[in-house]
């Protein structure tokens, strides 16, 4: 299949968005859904075709000297800033782009399909806004695909915004509920803040490189430039601002942009709230695809990041901390979607850390085939995580659809009622916990290896977090499906959902099982050179062991109803509450935004505007009026007064002019 079919992959969702958005209202709800699914199916097939062609076909000469090169399929100018700075809207395929195509289309298709069932009530009637929902899904899919195939940094930025908006629209799908209303706003603004840094980063970078392109046919792109010491980028490396090179600033800012989308601490606060959206949306956007855009961004610019050790260290610290932090919070959440969201944060932090550690050029490079291991591991984890996290979310969706609640105390003991879901969820849990042979094991293992390469401390830390992952995931699992007998709260018993919802679960579960065997190391590497990895059994064994301990702990605490969790919570109530309240980060933000910015900056500025600036102009008018009133007595009405005025006037005129001219 020719790679140029990628255009269709991008175009179909866009067309679907316009089509469904403009004329969806006129059509039946189900019709729109079905059209959407079919279109998505076509997209998926095309995407698979293209990706596989890219990875395995060699006819188009994209493999040069054993190195898989990026292929630019299509690259028209979109916006000309200057002779050199041109924003193009192109399509470029390279390993990670191709991989992302698969990830996005797969999950998106699953979600499209799943939503057919999910977005209906129990009588099979589609919800209000069904058409809108599908249109937005198509929009998101388009944006995300556009993002990953971007040929230049600015295009990434553009689609960053686009996915942000899609996310905003979808989180706010139930716009009448205050929580969703609040959440989408928050999500957008936080990511917008991050995008601001991204933008600044782009500005700084492009100032030196004079191009946005990663690779370019005629001139070197940003990445291509690295090989050329004469390139102006070298200047960016030496120009310093506040002690750091311009390039370090630029890359750090760009990372912040990515961190916002990928919910790194402290910009993570929007993600848990984003769970107010429909659950399939959470699966698609806030678990599998959009949130990894940040990781993707860093990976995209990875060849530059590796040059700036300081930035990599920052990323590393942020990632490692976020991983732990989110995992800790996930351990105590009672809302399953929130717990999953924190799990997502933690996992993305894994990927981020993995990217960051891969710059370490320790002695293991020889063995593991270069410092791209972390990169590869990260991308691999991105892939597997997308699958199993989507699975988990969709399962959660099925459960929520069945019990009409997000709180796990409304669930318990659902295993009996929803066996398929239960099994699928279990597979997801095993995958994320890193139990072989499930997908997560393979990717997480590589990450840990990379982390150990960076330093033993990083490795231990990440392993510990992996253990926590196993614990909290199984905590959730047990609390949902076991713990105690289910009390039916609604008029009908919870049960497995219709096939439209179950089928995606099954497919994703299957992928989660086998995805680990994808030869990612061969295919997805930073420079296109295949890596030769082998399982490091010491590290793998340790992590599996730790995961098992985590699972065991969870089993002990949550399999059967008991008071152990309660007692443990009581024993360190402060910590527990802090974790439950997400370490008060939201309150902190609330304080900063409302008290500091809103009350402390906006209000005073608005007051200043009205009182001082506006007041000044009003004062001019007032002064004029007052003066006018004050001098009215001059016109006294008396003839002698007039003449007096006249005479004094003429004398003064003479005397003053005389004085001025003569002196």
């Amino acid at each position, binding site marked *: 299949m020719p790679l140029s079919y990628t255009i269709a992959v991008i175009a179909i969702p866009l067309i679907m968005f316009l089509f469904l958005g403009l004329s969806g209202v006129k059509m039946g709800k189900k019709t729109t859904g079905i059209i959407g699914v079919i279109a998505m199916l076509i997209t998926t097939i095309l995407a698979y075709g293209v990706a596989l062609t890219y990875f395995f076909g060699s006819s188009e000469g994209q493999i040069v000297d054993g190195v898989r090169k990026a292929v630019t399929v299509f690259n028209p100018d979109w916006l000309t800033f200057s002779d050199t700075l041109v924003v193009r809207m192109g399509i470029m395929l390279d390993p990670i782009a191709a991989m992302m195509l698969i990830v996005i289309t797969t999950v998106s298709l699953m979600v499209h399909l799943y939503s057919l069932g999910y977005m209906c009530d129990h009588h099979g009637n589609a919800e209000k806004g069904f058409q809108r929902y599908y249109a937005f899904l198509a929009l998101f899919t388009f944006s995300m695909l556009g993002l990953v195939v971007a040929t230049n940094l600015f295009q990434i930025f553009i689609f960053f915004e686009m996915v942000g908006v899609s996310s905003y629209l979808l989180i706010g799908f139930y716009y009448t509920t205050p929580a969703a209303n609040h959440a989408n706003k928050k999500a957008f603004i936080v990511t917008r803040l991050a995008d601001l840094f991204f933008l600044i980063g782009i500005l700084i970078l492009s100032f030196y490189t004079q191009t946005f392109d990663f690779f370019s046919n005629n001139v070197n792109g940003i990445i291509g430039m690295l090989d050329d010491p004469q390139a102006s980028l070298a200047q960016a490396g030496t120009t310093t601002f506040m002690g750091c090179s311009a390039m370090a600033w630029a890359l750090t800012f760009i990372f912040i942009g990515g961190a916002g989308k990928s919910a790194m601490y402290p910009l993570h606060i929007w993600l848990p709230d984003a769970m107010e959206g429909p659950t399939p949306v959470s699966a698609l956007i806030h678990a599998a695809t959009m949130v990894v855009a940040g990781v993707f961004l860093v990976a995209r610019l990875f060849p530059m990041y590796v040059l700036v050790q300081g930035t990599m260290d920052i990323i590393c610290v942020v990632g490692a901390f976020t991983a732990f932090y989110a995992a800790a919070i996930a351990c105590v959440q009672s809302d399953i979607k929130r717990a999953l969201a924190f799990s997502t944060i933690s996992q993305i932090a894994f990927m981020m850390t993995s990217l960051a550690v891969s710059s370490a050029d320790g002695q293991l490079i020889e063995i593991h085939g270069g410092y791209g291991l972390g990169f590869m591991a990260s991308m691999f984890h991105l892939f597997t995580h997308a699958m199993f996290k989507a699975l988990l979310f969709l399962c959660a969706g099925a459960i929520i659809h069945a019990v009409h609640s997000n709180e796990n105390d409304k669930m318990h003991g659902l295993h009996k009622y929803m066996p398929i879901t239960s099994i699928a969820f279990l597979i997801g849990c095993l995958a994320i916990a890193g139990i072989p042979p499930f997908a997560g094991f393979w990717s997480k293992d590589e990450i840990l290896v990379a982390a150990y390469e960076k330093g033993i401390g990083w490795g231990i830390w990440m392993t510990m977090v992996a253990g926590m992952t196993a614990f909290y995931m199984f905590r959730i699992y047990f609390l949902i499906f076991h713990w105690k007998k289910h009390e039916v709260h609604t008029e009908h018993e919870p049960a497995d959902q219709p096939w439209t919802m179950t089928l995606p679960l099954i497919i994703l579960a299957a992928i989660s099982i086998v995805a680990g065997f994808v030869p990612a190391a061969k295919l997805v590497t930073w420079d296109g050179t295949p890596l030769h990895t082998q399982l490091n059994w010491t590290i793998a064994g340790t992590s599996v062991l730790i995961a098992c301990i985590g699972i065991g702990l969870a089993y002990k605490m949550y399999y059967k109803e008991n008071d152990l969790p309660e007692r443990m919570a009581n024993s360190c109530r402060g910590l527990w509450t802090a974790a439950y309240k997400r370490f008060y980060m939201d309150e902190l933000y609330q304080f900063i935004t409302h008290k500091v910015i809103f009350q402390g900056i906006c209000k005073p500025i608005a007051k200043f505007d009205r009182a001082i600036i506006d007041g000044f102009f009003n004062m001019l008018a007032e002064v004029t009026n007052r003066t006018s009133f004050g001098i009215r007595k001059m016109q006294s009405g008396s003839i002698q007064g007039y003449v007096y005025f006249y*005479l004094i006037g003429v*004398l003064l005129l*003479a*005397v003053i002019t005389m004085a001025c001219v003569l002196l």
Partner: protein
Amino acid sequence: MESLGNIIMYFVIALAIIVFSVLTVTTRKILRSATYLLFTLFATAALYFQLDYAFLGAVQIAVYAGGIVVLFVFSILLTQKPGEDAAPLSSHRKWLGIITAVAGVAVCGCAVFSYAQFCGQLMPDMAAPSIENIGKFLLSTDKLGYLLPFEAVSVLLLACIIGGVVIARRR
């Protein structure tokens, strides 16, 4: 060097002008004010005579003294009840008036003084202001002829007459 008679005459006239002017504006009886004005005008006429402008002096007496002052007296009698004095001035008003008047005189005086201090005597070669000359110039259309103003002032007087009619009409 002037003749002594001229000098004495000058001082008499100057004194009369100054004294009667002051009296004109300070007396509280309005009819007396008009009388003092008459004296001032006479003194002025005398001054014209002294400066050899006999015709002008005559006109001054005829028009001013004979016409205008009579007009004043008529108006005063029309508007004033007999024996009514003006109320004494408030000192505030008086001083304001004095200061302004003095300031005005001072400014003009300084200016005139700075200009005229070097101008000495009468120059002898005076164009004789004889009636003949005056008549000739008054009706001449050439330079220094005053036919046009003569006609124009007649229009002015006509206008004032019509204006007077307008004002005087009852309705």
